[in-house]
């Protein structure tokens, strides 16, 4: 049985789902718990084919609630467990993910966003931002990485495992159906060959000895008797989340300095934004681009700095203002007139459309819906 990756660096041309399966393997994942839903199915398919050769496991459950809770069970037993889902599946994942938040259990879930609400489309959207960041009954103690390309799907899947097992918060990798199904080139690598250390997993149950006498007892709570008891647990948890947030928050920007307009987007849409600002530059228009890589925690300070001197902002997303809500919260003191938006729930956005929109805005028009 082969135990190590068959490469240290390997340029490949694969689908996003295949990239995720390899990245999970590279990140040292032990087991995947999954349930069929398009467009993430192939993560399970690739994983089930890869897993046996590397001594890894797979278990298909009867629904996403079960996939989430079996993942938690695997983690409590000391395994690096993960899952993948989409759309209505992400809705069902909220129950296990909030339990992971409350009990501070590391957990990695890949979301390949599809259209919503409900069954909607199996294809694409950016409508799972609210759900990924704040979907549960709680305070949104999750880390959400929004990826834009296959290299990032690979990089951030590995990172997700490390962040989850370092800080013990659930981590979502937020891709989408386009990234899931499209083929693209990327470099897959063995994290060790790049000097990356993988955070170790630790068992909570099933350890030798007797808890409380021969080894320290672990008490992870999910239920509280009185209000104050809960409050006293939430507040230090929030403090730890904020402290972690400062260390994991990430963003990307280009050409924001001196820009007359900054396009704010995330995920795959930001590729259109990057292409658009290049084309605008050729036309002599100075536009910049800003992209939160972590949707949660949101790079509020970086965004404030990047757009402080910029008179106009264009928020673009394949949803009806889910990113814009976070942006407006971060820039709460800006005049409303400085925002333009392109909201296309469930539909892709091209560079050509953005170039056209920016030209229209410069001519005194607006793109707001």
């Amino acid at each position, binding site marked *: 049985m082969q135990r190590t990756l068959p490469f240290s660096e390997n340029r490949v041309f694969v689908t996003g789902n295949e990239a995720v399966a390899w990245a999970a393997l590279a990140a040292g994942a032990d087991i995947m718990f999954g349930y069929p839903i398009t467009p993430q199915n192939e993560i399970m398919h690739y994983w089930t084919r890869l897993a046996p050769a590397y001594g890894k496991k797979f278990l298909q459950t009867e629904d996403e609630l079960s996939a989430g809770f079996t993942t938690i069970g695997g983690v409590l037993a000391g395994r690096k467990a993960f899952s993948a889902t989409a759309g209505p599946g992400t809705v069902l994942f909220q129950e296990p993910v909030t339990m992971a938040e409350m009990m501070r259990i590391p957990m990695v879930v890949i979301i390949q966003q599809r259209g919503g609400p409900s*069954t909607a489309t199996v294809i694409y959207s950016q409508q799972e931002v609210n759900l990924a960041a704040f979907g549960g009954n709680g305070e949104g103690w999750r880390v959400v990485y929004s990826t834009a390309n296959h290299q990032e799907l690979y990089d951030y899947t590995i990172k997700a495992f490390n962040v989850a097992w370092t800080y013990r918060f659930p981590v979502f990798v937020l891709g989408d159906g386009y990234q899931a199904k499209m083929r693209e080139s990327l470099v897959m690598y063995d994290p060790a060959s790049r000097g990356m250390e993988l955070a170790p997993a630790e068992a909570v149950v099933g350890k030798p000895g007797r808890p409380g006498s021969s080894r320290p007892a672990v008490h992870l709570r999910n239920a509280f008797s009185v209000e104050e008891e809960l409050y006293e647990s939430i507040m230090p948890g929030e403090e730890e989340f904020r402290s972690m947030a400062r260390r994991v928050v990430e963003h990307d920007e280009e050409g924001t300095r001196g820009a007359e307009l900054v396009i704010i987007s995330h995920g795959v849409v930001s590729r259109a934004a990057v292409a658009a600002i290049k084309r605008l530059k050729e036309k002599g228009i100075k536009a910049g681009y800003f992209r939160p890589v972590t949707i949660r925690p949101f790079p509020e300070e970086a965004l404030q700095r990047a757009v402080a001197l910029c008179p106009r902002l264009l928020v673009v997303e394949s949803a009806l203002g889910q990113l814009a809500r976070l942006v407006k919260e971060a820039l709460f003191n800006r005049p409303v007139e400085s925002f333009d938006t392109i909201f296309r729930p469930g539909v892709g956005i091209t560079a050509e459309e953005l170039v056209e929109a920016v030209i229209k805005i410069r001519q005194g028009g607006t793109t707001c819906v």
Partner: protein
Amino acid sequence: MAVKLSELTKQRELLTGGHRLCAGCGASVAVRQVLHAVPKDTSVVTCCPTGCLEVSTTIYPYNAWRTGFIHSAFENAASTMSGVETAYRALKKKGKVSGDFRFVVFGGDGGTYDIGFQALSGMLERGHRVLYVCYNNEAYMNTGIQRSGATQLGTWTTTSPYGEQSFGKGQNRKDLTAIAAAHNIPYVGQAAVHNWRDTFTKAGKALQAEGAAFLNILAPCHRGWRYPMEKTIEISKMATEVCIWPLYEVENGKWRLTYRVRNKKPVRDYLKMQGRFAHLFRPENEGVIEQLQEFTDRQWESLLERCGEKA
């Protein structure tokens, strides 16, 4: 109830042609056989959870259903229909709705055996007058052939692949028909698409039942089972002949075989017709077929006993 096929062909189809299910798909055959049993002057409301049947019969702006039709989410068709039926009863009581209605759910095995199981059990226990039909093709075909609780031992699927470490699915299927019967509802039947008369008769009884009814209909899928598309009916028939899918009913607690197998054939004869079992005939997977045979025999013997067929 003597019915002639020639008469059925003249009946108006409640699931029309032009839908986009595959040629040779067992699901549409199952649906049409059930809906033919709807009494005249009775209206039908149908509901599908997400699945091949729903996707392929309701591609916007078309709809192949000549019934009131609800697409529900994946886990909750039985709940949705429970709500419809409850409202119907209330309206009927108040005299706000006239005419006779029947309510039929058509769910695949993923939406019935697995994610929809809780909703189904609730519906059966509460005793809504709804007929729940599972068109059972023994895997999640709509999302790309993943194993389900209905998948037989040793089956290849995309999430139970075979190779050095695996011979395919590692577990036996669950016996959902018997589980439904354990709810002590008026009518439960197990049918298959090759025996139209049997399915039609069972659907008729199920629709007449004064309470919840459940039909589990084997509906072979050539894409997932890997056989030539014209063999759907033949394979369904063989499933019954090898007793891996016996035809029976449980009417008011009374178990009865509705088709007596005269010459029980080995399971092997059924398996070798399908690509999803081809790997079981390789030397490295020796013994799996025997395990499946043993499981089938055990289930069959137990069924014979329940049906009073054993001396």
